[in-house]
């Protein structure tokens, strides 16, 4: 059973309840239209020829035989994209570099990873398209390749790009440095110091739906795309930039999305399908296979992190030096930036130096994965804090409480923190019965905290009231975690009508104002704010219409229980419901519809503390998670089940990083485990039910107190599991994933 306790009380009628999700029926009956379910008449099927080499120069490409094959209607290479000069567009949480994104769609003069697309074909059937690939001749000059961080940093390493490092050709794409005080001196005088080199592996988001799209370009240059992504506006900007179109000429319709976790905040297929459609004059459908997903889409980065953390004997953290190297893949992707920001951001530490660099190597370019780059950095820090607690014989939560950031402390951005809730979250963890439950033999308990900054961003919402008083709520944010339910609930709460009278939809890019993609834990926060404000304006219109019907001043109308009440002196009017007002709209001024665009900058960071129990089989090195509790500061849980689901899903993904997930590459640098059989995400039987405890300290300036909840739960699990395994093993585990073989070897080495 999931613990559904929430701290805080409910003063709303709908927000905080658990209604059935509006998108549920179609999903459980298989009717929901995902990327691969979309068809158009006359549609062609696309296929991609990929690089068999981890690193090579393309000498020549001969597509003549493929073009001559009956049924082939178009063949495309990178030469079909207009050349753009390293232009960054603002299309995600981080910008997207157009030229590099284009090379990840179709390689130009070099291939940088096995699986990088080289040539695309559109044909009248998938079989013909695949057969055409066999007829394409690509000549390569194979170059030495490099995959691991340390190897890529060596002075004699093969260099992928000549122009990344200002200091001269190297694989270091970025160097970051953030220091305050004199960390080295403070470490020298610390009573205790925890030291370690921690490593994590590149990890794939493992969304269950491979990328898929249909593109249709018309003769006059207008185009449409139907696809599953985390942001139709992001797709529009990247595709338009790569293919050289006007934004308004490209209409992107979001289809249902089967998971993204950050991985679908960029595109790999859509520009290719668009070019193939433009060349063939026919709609083109493209669908990745799971194998292609693993070989060519961006995972989260691996990292190597050195940490030295010092404290006084009373448990005051005084100094920290953290140096991080992120394995960003073939092009600079999800790198050390957010790691530098997040590493020590949860604690008051006077003297600190945090450095980081991005290291490119011959594997798919990394991309966002849930709280991008924070889990790696915080893993090292939370393990080191655990070591300090052990050295001092201090309770690990008490140690964190002594050092946790709180309201008024300076945040990473330099401004003081608002009413953040790290302390409350730590207190809730300390008081949880899991924390004091007895452990059996070979069992260990680990705790770890984590934080994530959360984003605001641009959002648009539109609410239109139909003639019968029902409401359509449209937003520009793909629903990856139940946001339609939350939007409908917030609108229904403000309008004070039942949720079933509100129908939420995700609109296409031509039908609603700009909305930043669904990511950064921003949608329920920012888009929810747009929805709430639009609904509040609708209420004002409804009141004005009622006032008009009654012939009273609008200030004499009150909206209560979903009805207008007349407060004018001496008037005894029966209340007017939304249905009555809406049915008279044409006589009182016309359509009742509000579109609201917002750009909030007051997103608040959120905090999570996870408690993990494991049982270790000392003979085999197997680790079983026996109990797991995710305690999380959520602001206000609009739909608690979906908030709990976020906490559970994040925890499970993090447990996967901690225990089993890793790419294996063969000697030629090819991915050796491009599938779910050997890329080992957790399966259901691996885990107990993940218990959750939601700590509700509402956001003070959000209409419903919402804070971002989707990303922070993936931050603590790496260290929570590592701390638990280390406790059970009686020795510190530094390297993820902690596979049975690795633990067995560590135990044996220790004797």
């Amino acid at each position, binding site marked *: 059973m999931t613990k559904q306790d929430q701290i805080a009380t409910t003063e709303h009628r709908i927000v905080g309840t658990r209604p059935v999700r509006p998108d549920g029926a179609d999903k459980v009956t298989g009717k929901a239209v995902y990327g691969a379910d979309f068809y158009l008449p006359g549609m062609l099927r696309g296929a991609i020829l990929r690089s068999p080499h981890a690193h090579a120069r393309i000498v020549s490409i001969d597509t003549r035989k493929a073009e001559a094959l009956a049924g082939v209607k178009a063949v495309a290479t990178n030469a079909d994209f207009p050349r753009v000069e390293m232009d960054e567009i603002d299309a995600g949480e981080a910008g997207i570099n157009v030229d590099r994104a284009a090379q990840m769609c179709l390689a130009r003069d070099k291939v940088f990873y096995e699986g990088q697309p080289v040539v695309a074909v559109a044909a009248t059937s998938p079989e013909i398209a695949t057969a055409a690939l066999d007829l394409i001749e690509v000549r390569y000059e194979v170059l030495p390749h490099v995959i691991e961080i340390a190897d890529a940093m060596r002075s004699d390493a093969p260099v992928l790009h000549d122009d990344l490092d200002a200091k001269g050709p190297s694989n270091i794409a970025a160097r970051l440095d953030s220091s305050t005080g004199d960390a080295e001196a403070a470490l020298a005088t610390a009573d205790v110091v925890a030291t370690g080199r921690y490593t994590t592996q590149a990890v794939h988001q493992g969304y269950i739906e491979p990328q898929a799209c249909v593109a249709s370009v018309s003769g006059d240059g207008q185009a449409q795309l139907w696809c599953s992504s985390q942001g139709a506006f992001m797709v529009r900007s990247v595709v338009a930039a790569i293919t050289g179109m006007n934004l308004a000429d490209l209409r992107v319709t979001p289809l249902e999305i089967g998971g993204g976790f950050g991985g679908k905040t960029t595109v790999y297929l859509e520009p290719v399908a668009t070019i193939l459609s433009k060349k063939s004059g026919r709609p083109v459908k493209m669908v990745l296979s799971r*194998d292609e997903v693993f070989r060519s889409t961006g995972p989260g980065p691996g990292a190597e992190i050195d940490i030295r953390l010092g404290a006084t004997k009373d448990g005051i953290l005084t100094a920290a030096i953290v140096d991080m190297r992120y394995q960003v893949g073939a092009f600079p992707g999800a790198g050390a930036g957010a790691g530098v920001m997040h590493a020590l951001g949860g604690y008051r530490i006077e003297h600190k130096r945090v450095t980081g660099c991005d290291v490119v190597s011959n594997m798919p370019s990394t991309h966002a994965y849930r709280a991008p780059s924070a889990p790696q950095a915080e893993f090292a820090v939370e393990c080191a804090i655990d070591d300090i607690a052990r050295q001092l014989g201090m309770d690990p939560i008490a140690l964190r409480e002594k050092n946790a950031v709180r309201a008024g402390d300076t945040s990473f951005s330099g401004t003081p923190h608002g009413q953040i809730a790290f302390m409350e979250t730590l207190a809730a963890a300390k008081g949880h019965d899991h924390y004091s439950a007895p452990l059996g033999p070979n069992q260990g308990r680990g705790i770890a905290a984590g934080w994530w900054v959360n984003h605001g961003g641009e959002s648009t919402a539109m609410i239109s009231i139909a003639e019968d008083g029902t409401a359509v709520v449209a937003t520009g944010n793909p629903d990856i975690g139940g946001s339609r339910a939350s939007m409908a609930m917030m609108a229904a709460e403000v309008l004070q009508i039942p949720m079933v009278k509100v129908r939420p939809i995700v609109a296409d890019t031509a039908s609603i104002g700009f909305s930043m993609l669904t990511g950064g834990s921003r949608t329920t926060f920012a888009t929810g704010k747009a929805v709430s404000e639009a609904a509040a304006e609708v209420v004002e219109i409804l009141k004005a219409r009622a006032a008009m019907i009654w012939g009273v001043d609008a200030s004499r109308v009150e909206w209560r229980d979903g009805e207008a009440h007349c407060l004018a002196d001496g008037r005894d009017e029966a209340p007017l419901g939304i249905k009555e007002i809406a049915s008279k709209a044409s006589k009182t001024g016309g359509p009742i519809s509000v579109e609201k665009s917002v750009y909030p900058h007051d997103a608040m960071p959120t905090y999570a503390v996870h408690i993990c129990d494991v049982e270790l089989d000392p*003979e*085999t*090195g*197997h680790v079983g998670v026996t109990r797991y509790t995710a305690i999380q500061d959520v602001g206000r849980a609009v739909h608690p089940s979906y908030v709990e689901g976020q906490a559970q899903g994040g925890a499970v993904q993090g447990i996967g990083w901690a*225990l*089993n997930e890793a790419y*294996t590459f063969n000697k030629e640098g090819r991915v*050796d*485990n491009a599938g*779910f*059989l*050997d890329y*080992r995400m*957790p*399966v259901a*039987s*691996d885990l107990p039910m993940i218990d959750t405890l939601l700590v509700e300290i509402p956001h003070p300036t959000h209409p419903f107190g919402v804070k971002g909840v989707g990303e922070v739960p993936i931050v603590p699990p790496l260290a929570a599991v590592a701390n638990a395994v280390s406790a059970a093993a009686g020795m510190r585990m530094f390297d993820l994933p902690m*596979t*049975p*073989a690795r633990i*067995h*070897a560590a135990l*044996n080495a220790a004797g």
Partner: protein
Amino acid sequence: MSYHSPTSVDQAVELLASRDDARPMSGGTDLLVQMRSGRLKPGAIVDIKGIDRAVGSRAQDGGFVIGAATPCTELLDDAALCAAWPGVVEAANLIGSVQVRNRATIGGNLCNASPAADSVPALIAAGARAVVAGPQGERIVAVEDLLAGPGWTTLGKGEFVLEFILPVREPGSADAYLRSIPRTEMDIAVVGAGINLSCDASGTITAARVALGAVAPTALLVPDAGAALIGSKLDEAALTAMGEAAKAACRPIDDKRGTIDYRIAMSAVYARRAAVIAYNRSRETL
């Protein structure tokens, strides 16, 4: 590509013998996956599930016969088989997931000839024999003699496995199978260990067969490991000797599923654990 569903052994043999690229199919959980991935392009598929003898399990001559194309989950419905050969049944029912096992068979598991196939060490430990049908009629072969190497069997052109024969069960006998996988299911064995043993009324082991999977190019029968148990009451010395014999027989590779060192170490651990289970089970049948 053509698909055939013969209802007699002779038809099946004729179809298989008629072309070099014909493949027998039982559950298809290997074959179809390999075809989709482009690894295998058979010209003809001969589905043997329509042949009566190839499906179902039955008692015969005091032992059991299992049709080679019987879905693994169906074995669970045969209470007598489960009581007599719990190790064989549990090995077959570790394969994949329930959905996979509703199709997957021990015939396919054996003939796919993966070194890590789960049911194979259990079948070898059990002393199972295969009834092979072919152009020359039927022949009976010990399971271990059908294995040639990774992906290769000793079956000749036109031959297929029709049935498995499990021997007569004496009181005081039982088997067990355990495997090491990184997760709890949906993984391929890093090491598999099948043990079949008999003991007398005093608990002294009178016969034992030990077979290992995923530690060599084919599943291995390890006679020395079995011999180490015989005459003992499964005391620590016997278990240690058996474990050492198991380790000595291993010739594993390093790959994405396990390292050489880990596989060798685990062969002893899992063989010991399986032996304890088999021994306890055998005592319950006395």
